[in-house]
């Protein structure tokens, strides 16, 4: 792999950009691998990268039904933060945030991590109490999070309307300054390039149709549209389609898949300096480096694999955006799309062993999986390599819905996050 650097840019500029090589190889699948990862999103590609880099397991294939990064990795609003309430969540999201901070250097790939701050608006007493509880919990745990008055919030994000007569008045905000955004495609491509360079096979347009198990119940491989591929370890990291894959091994997972929508505006000059989220009126907004306002809407109320979502959902979000930021009322929206998110009953992720030996699962990241990508991938690689979870992911087990040890971020946030 040729390293990317300013010298590479100059060199290629001198010779008509003819020397850039493909970022990852597209090999024919082998008959057998040490480990297979089902799902070529950020989490799956990242897990393959860390398996190769940190655990020395390079005989790995990532099987992707479509194209890499074409699912939720390429469909989210790229928000990164770690200000969750429970220790299990803080552990993994803070682990991810720390990896985000050095990811571009680690991958030699500019993932455009931008710690521009994530500000969560408080609209009422309940919000205020809940956010202050988050702020205190985070700071006790060594995670930055601070409380802002409405005036401080306005100073941090000038387009915000803090008038007392506003339709959704604001009584404060919680700000995580290290939070921000990153470029989603670059995350998938950067991990793919790093993994491929270390010998991982990235196999696109390869749909898993069955998981095969030996007489003792241990996994022996998968059937795909490109034939049988053997492996003693299979990691499933298929986001909204996890239920479909896990059903192939007769494992029921407590997931419900539904569409989550996002949309972007026409490009504007730099106007919006941070990420603003309002859980209560349900709106997320930031501005991409291309100038588009990136807006996140809610999930539909029904299970679906349709990658679309209802118009009333985005209308509701745009209504809130226009009230919070009156200057955006006449901005035109350019594109809208949906991704299929896998929500668990407690709205915390599942990463762990399954009842089937050799089969591991990483799922349930729901509406907020992008921010976890490096952390989740790093810990999933540990799980697949060692066969047992890393300390930081030890609480995210699949069996917590039987034992009752829930990580109830749903109750903590009262919204999708």
């Amino acid at each position: 792999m040729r390293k990317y650097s300013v010298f590479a840019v100059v060199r290629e500029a001198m010779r008509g950009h003819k020397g850039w090589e493909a970022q990852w190889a597209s090999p024919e699948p082998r008959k057998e691998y040490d480990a297979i990862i089902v799902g070529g999103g950020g989490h799956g590609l990242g897990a393959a990268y860390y398996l190769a880099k940190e655990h020395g397991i390079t005989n790995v294939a990532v099987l992707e039904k479509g194209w890499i990064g074409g699912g939720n990795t390429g469909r989210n609003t790229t928000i990164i933060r770690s200000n969750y309430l429970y220790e299990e969540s803080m552990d993994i999201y803070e682990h991810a945030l720390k990896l985000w901070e050095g990811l571009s250097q680690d991958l030699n790939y500019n993932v455009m991590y931008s710690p521009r701050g994530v500000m969560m608006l408080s609209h009422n007493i309940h919000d205020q109490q809940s956010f202050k509880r988050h702020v205190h919990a985070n700071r006790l745990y060594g995670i930055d999070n601070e409380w802002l008055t409405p005036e401080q919030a306005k100073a941090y994000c000038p387009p915000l309307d803090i008038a007392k007569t506003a339709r959704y008045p604001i009584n404060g905000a919680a700000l995580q300054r290290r939070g921000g955004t990153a470029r989603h495609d670059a995350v998938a491509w950067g991990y793919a390039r790093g993994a491929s360079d270390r010998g991982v096979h990235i196999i696109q347009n390869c749909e898993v149709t069955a998981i095969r198990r030996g007489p003792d119940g241990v996994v022996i491989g998968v059937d795909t549209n490109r034939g049988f591929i053997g492996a003693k370890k299979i990691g499933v990291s298929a986001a909204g389609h996890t239920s479909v894959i896990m059903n192939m091994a007769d494992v029921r997972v407590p997931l419900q898949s539904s569409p989550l929508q996002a949309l972007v505006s026409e490009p504007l000059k730099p106007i919006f300096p941070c990420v603003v989220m309002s859980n209560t009126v349900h709106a997320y907004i930031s501005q991409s480096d291309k100038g588009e306002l990136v807006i996140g809407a809610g999930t539909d109320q029904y299970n679906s694999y349709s990658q679309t979502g209802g118009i009333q959902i985005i209308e509701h979000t745009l209504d809130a955006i226009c009230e919070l930021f009156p200057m955006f009322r006449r901005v035109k929206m350019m594109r809208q799309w949906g991704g299929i998110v896998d929500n668990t009953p407690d709205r915390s992720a599942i990463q762990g062993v399954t009842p089937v030996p050799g089969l591991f699962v990483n799922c349930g990241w729901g509406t907020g999986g992008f921010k976890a990508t490096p952390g989740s991938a790093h810990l999933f690689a540990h799980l697949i390599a060692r066969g047992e979870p890393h300390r930081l992911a030890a609480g995210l087990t699949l069996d917590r819905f039987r034992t009752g040890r829930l990580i109830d971020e749903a109750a903590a946030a009262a919204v999708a996050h």
Partner: protein
Amino acid sequence: MLLIYCPYCEEERSELEFRGAGDAHIARSTNIAAISDEEFEAYFFLRENPKGMIFERWRHIHGCGRFFNAARDTVSDRFVKTYKAGEPKPDLHPAPATAATVETYEALEGDAQ
């Protein structure tokens, strides 16, 4: 936005009038205190999440207010059937009409006339 046929009002109405209420045909154990943790998990947390035919409850909350059941294809979001609460689960093919993402009306119904 979905168009949903309420079997009580006998009318197709917009999704805005309805509230989705999750899986249909879940029977609560009559001796809930005696069942095992596995059985409780299956009853309380595990839901069908099929890519294809799903059987779910809906409530016509801004209409007649009644609960009813529906069979719907989760790939196209198309309702195959709605039926009154208490009626048996219809015997319908579980596979989706198409496995590909349905983005247009034409993809499902053929050319618009």
